[in-house]
């Protein structure tokens, strides 16, 4: 166990792990309750989740606890993950975000199931790998990278620092309307770039 822990500490900053690996790990966790695959997921995601919790204003110890707790939930809920509906990172983000809202903001957070076919998830994991999200995430990452700085700034304040539109407006000393229009412009670029009719 110690050797494994050490290995992951050293690889913490390695971010170039292919998306397909995280999906394979999560699939092994869901199907076989594979501890080794889970440790790989931990090595990849736990430091990022902790980074996210720190940005949301948690102190180091709380951020560590919240990252640990998120990983426990990932283990417990792995069989709900549906690769057809979302990338692994999307699913992990939702688990981390919901925990952050519950523990740090002490609020309930209602969310519609984006994957409505939860009962068939294991089957999907086994048979629909060709419908993987790798291309989509690569494309999305590129589009995000191309967002103008002032749009990226408001996106990051919302997603990382948990600021509402009016709080972003105060932080940047710009009108709420400007915050919203920057968000709309950014989202519009992503929608068009992803070719969605939405």
């Amino acid at each position: 166990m110690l050797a494994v822990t050490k290995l992951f500490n050293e690889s913490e900053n390695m971010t170039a792990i292919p998306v397909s690996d995280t999906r394979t790990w999560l699939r092994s966790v869901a199907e076989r309750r594979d501890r080794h695959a889970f440790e790989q997921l931990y090595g990849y995601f736990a430091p990022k989740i902790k980074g996210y919790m720190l940005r949301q204003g948690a102190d180091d110890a709380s951020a560590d606890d919240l990252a640990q707790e998120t990983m426990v939930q990932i283990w417990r809920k792995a069989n709900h993950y549906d690769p057809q509906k979302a990338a692994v990172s999307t699913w992990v983000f939702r688990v981390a975000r919901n925990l952050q809202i519950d523990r740090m903001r002490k609020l309930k957070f209602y969310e519609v199931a984006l994957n409505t076919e939860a009962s068939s998830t294991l089957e999907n994991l086994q048979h629909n790998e060709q419908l993987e999200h790798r291309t989509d995430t690569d494309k999305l990452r590129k589009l995000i990278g191309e967002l103008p700085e002032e749009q990226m700034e408001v996106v990051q304040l919302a997603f990382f620092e948990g600021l509402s539109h009016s709080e972003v407006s105060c932080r940047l000393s710009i009108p709420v309307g400007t915050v919203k229009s920057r968000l709309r412009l950014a989202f519009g670029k992503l929608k068009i770039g992803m070719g969605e009719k939405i």
Partner: protein
Amino acid sequence: MKINHHADDATIMAYAAGTVSEGFSLLLTAHMEVCSHCRERMSLASDLGGELLCEVEPARMSQEGLSNVLSAIEADIIDPVTPFKSPSASSDMASVLMEYVPRGLDELPWQRLMPGIRQYQLTGVESGNGSVRLLSISPGIRIPHHTHLGGELTLVIEGAYEDEIGHFKAGDLADLDASCNHQPVAVGNKPCICLIATDDKLRFTGLLSRMVQPLIGI
């Protein structure tokens, strides 16, 4: 269900980022149970969150982090399965609202606000300085003039209303911000029942709003 009015992109992004109030998340969930258009945009905004998470600066986990997590999952007696709630097909009422309106709209202890307007405040939804309430507006009745200094979401549950923006019927969502100044009027032959959530960052500072607020509370 054909839905014509939706959540704004900026609202969808705030929802995905998790920065909306509890009341907003309740109302948006109720809308998305019937609206695939908003659900798809929510998926994209969540993908954005996932990508941003992948790019966040990682923070070194504590030495005992992994062993803590492994001990916790080993302590699981059986693997708990917590199924996602799936939308209910048996009722017109969004399943997320059933918790608050278990016996249907007719059985609620409606409170009369003024002739033709009744309200029911949802209890147990944390909404800070804002509120989450149901309004029942009789046909032909106009809501008194009011402005929004923060955000306000309105979801039509039954019946329909019209305002300067358009015609809103069951399932439609009005996503209004401060710049909007509207006077909805219930139309059709039965009361228009709406779920209305106001932002928890809402501040009533204007004279008009201060006068209207005690009257109607929105």
